[in-house]
């Protein structure tokens, strides 16, 4: 493998990793607070891509309007899902919550099939994101930089929010101990909704960027990225936002490089990611940056 080819793969891996990272953050935020793996998260990604698609296609909106609109609507949708499907189940054993997430995911996917049709649709890449740039012998398309740049900016912004704003502090407190924080006067419901909104908004960005990178959208497009993003979150330490980012990048790069070095095993690509997950869960469930949680009796 030539050096330029390696860099090409690396660039590809980093941009794929950014997508996983953006989606993984949503998983990890929700898990941190509610201890819930939001199975429906991957489908939120899909919804955002479709909203952006229809915005451009039906309403003829230029991308710099349809994208933000899609992100906002998706964030609202995330809050809506939380209110209707997860909040009523807060007092109930966690496993019911999980089943509810599975049901929501299933519903969204099937609704997608009915409403959007089972046929994949073409997503329009904004022109400036479609420019081929040659760097050191490798062809890199400009969207790669956009993806990486946008992700980094959002991560920085999120870290700032979590560390320095009241809302962020409240979120961190909720992840530590939801009951006590509620007793301390924090409006639990509101903060949880905000967490869902931010998580869904980031997933929406991920969905749109994914549609730009792979300009073919279909109702099941969020399933695999959702699962992989979950693996990334676990890899980084579930509940930890920085961990989710790192996990996302690592997983993306690993996935691309494994298949690049062993092209004959390309068919086993998804099996690799799942194997990584299982190994993690067995040997280091807390991931890279996670903290061991003592189990309350």
């Amino acid at each position: 493998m030539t050096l330029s080819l390696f860099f090409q793969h690396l660039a590809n891996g980093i941009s794929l990793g950014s997508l996983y990272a953006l989606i993984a953050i949503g998983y990890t935020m929700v898990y941190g607070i509610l201890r819930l793996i939001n199975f429906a998260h991957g489908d939120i990604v899909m919804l955002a891509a479709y909203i952006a698609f229809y915005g451009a296609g039906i309403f003829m909106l230029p991308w710099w309007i349809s994208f933000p609109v899609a992100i906002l609507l998706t964030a609202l949708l995330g809050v809506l899902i939380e209110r209707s499907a997860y909040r009523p189940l807060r007092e109930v054993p966690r496993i019911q919550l999980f089943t509810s997430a599975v049901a929501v995911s299933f519903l969204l996917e099937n609704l997608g099939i009915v409403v959007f049709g089972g046929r994949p649709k073409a997503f329009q890449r904004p022109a400036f994101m479609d420019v081929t740039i040659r760097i050191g012998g490798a062809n890199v398309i400009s969207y790669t930089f956009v993806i990486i740049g946008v992700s980094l900016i959002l991560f920085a912004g999120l870290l700032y929010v979590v560390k320095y704003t009241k809302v962020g502090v409240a979120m961190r407190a909720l992840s530590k101990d939801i009951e006590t924080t509620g007793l301390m006067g924090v409006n639990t419901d509101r903060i949880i909704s905000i967490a869902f909104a931010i998580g869904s908004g980031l997933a929406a960005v991920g969905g749109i960027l994914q549609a730009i990178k792979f300009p073919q959208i279909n109702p099941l497009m969020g399933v695999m990225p959702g699962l992989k993003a979950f693996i990334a979150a676990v890899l980084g330490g579930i509940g930890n936002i920085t961990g989710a980012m790192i996990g996302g990048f690592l997983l993306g790069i690993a996935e691309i490089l494994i298949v690049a070095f062993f092209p004959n095993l390309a068919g086993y690509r998804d099996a690799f990611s799942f194997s990584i997950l299982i190994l993690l869960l067995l040997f280091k469930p807390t991931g890279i940056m996670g903290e061991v949680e003592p189990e309350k009796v």
Partner: protein
Amino acid sequence: MKNFLSRNRILTWITLVLFAGFLFYAQNHYNSYILRIMNLCAVYTIFAVTFNLIFGYTGQFSLGHAGFAAVGAYAAALLTMTAAQKEANFFLKPIIPLLANVEWHFLPSLLMAGLMAAVVALIVGGPALRLRGDYLAMATLGFGEIIRVVFVNLQTVTNGSLGLKGIPEFTNLYWSWGAALVTIFVLKRLVDSSYGRALRAVRDDEVAAEALGVRLFYHKMLSFVVSSFFVGVAGGLLSNLISTIDPKVFIFTLSYQIVGIAVMGGMGSMTGSTIAACLYTVFLEVLRPIESPFNIGSLQVPGIPGMRMVLFSALLLFVILFYQKGILGGREFSWDGLFAFGKKMMNRIQGRGTGGGEAVEEVEQ
């Protein structure tokens, strides 16, 4: 007490005989479309009931059902197909010599299917069952998908994505419902025994159970492996029913559907799972017309493809949110319960049991 038991036993035997008679009649009189649905009901019943054992009784949320079904299905298919059929199928790359000339009867093939699934469950359960809750779910989902991806790529064993066709159709009502009844029977005995109590202890509070001396891992493995055995058998029944399988049949959404059925039937209730499985299969077929254009009077309504699944998932969500216990909650069907219900109905009809009686009933709830 003894009287009660023999009355119940007699009733159960009578019902079984009647049911067998019904199966005999159906097998010989209904067309193959209805038979197919009835067979599918049995297969899904086994799926749901075994999931109930793992989740409803032992509290382990396993999403790997589809993977075990795949193991069982392929095992039974490869064992029952003739050498000629195998040769016709494996036209891209020949099947491995070990399997090329094997041709077994149905019963040993089904048993082997179950056995292989159980062995895989042992391997999967070893690592997976050390995890809890959501992690276990993801790990089992991962294993299920790994199994499927492996099957897609093992061209010389499973014929990869080309799948297997021409699997002899041995499954009939006697096999499928017979297996379902055996499964329910075995599982019920397990659940009613001291093992069952241990399983429920594990479900309700693992730490307390362990403190009381229940061997957590052993019991989790027990329910996992026993379930998987029957899931493998069900997979074998499925492959010999639809006679064409490929790895796509066993994608993880199948596990989702099984979860949905079991939840709707009520976790911890075998009866509920059975009923839900049958309702699911039947309704899915009955609702089929809404997906093709149909006529209401003189109005042509265009079909909405995919609507059936939307209705199912919406219903599932509804049940989870509002009717959490499912159709039957944790309760099982029993003759005593039926008679008590009958008595209560009689009382109501005859005007008794109002006023004071009612109050007592309410307090009881």
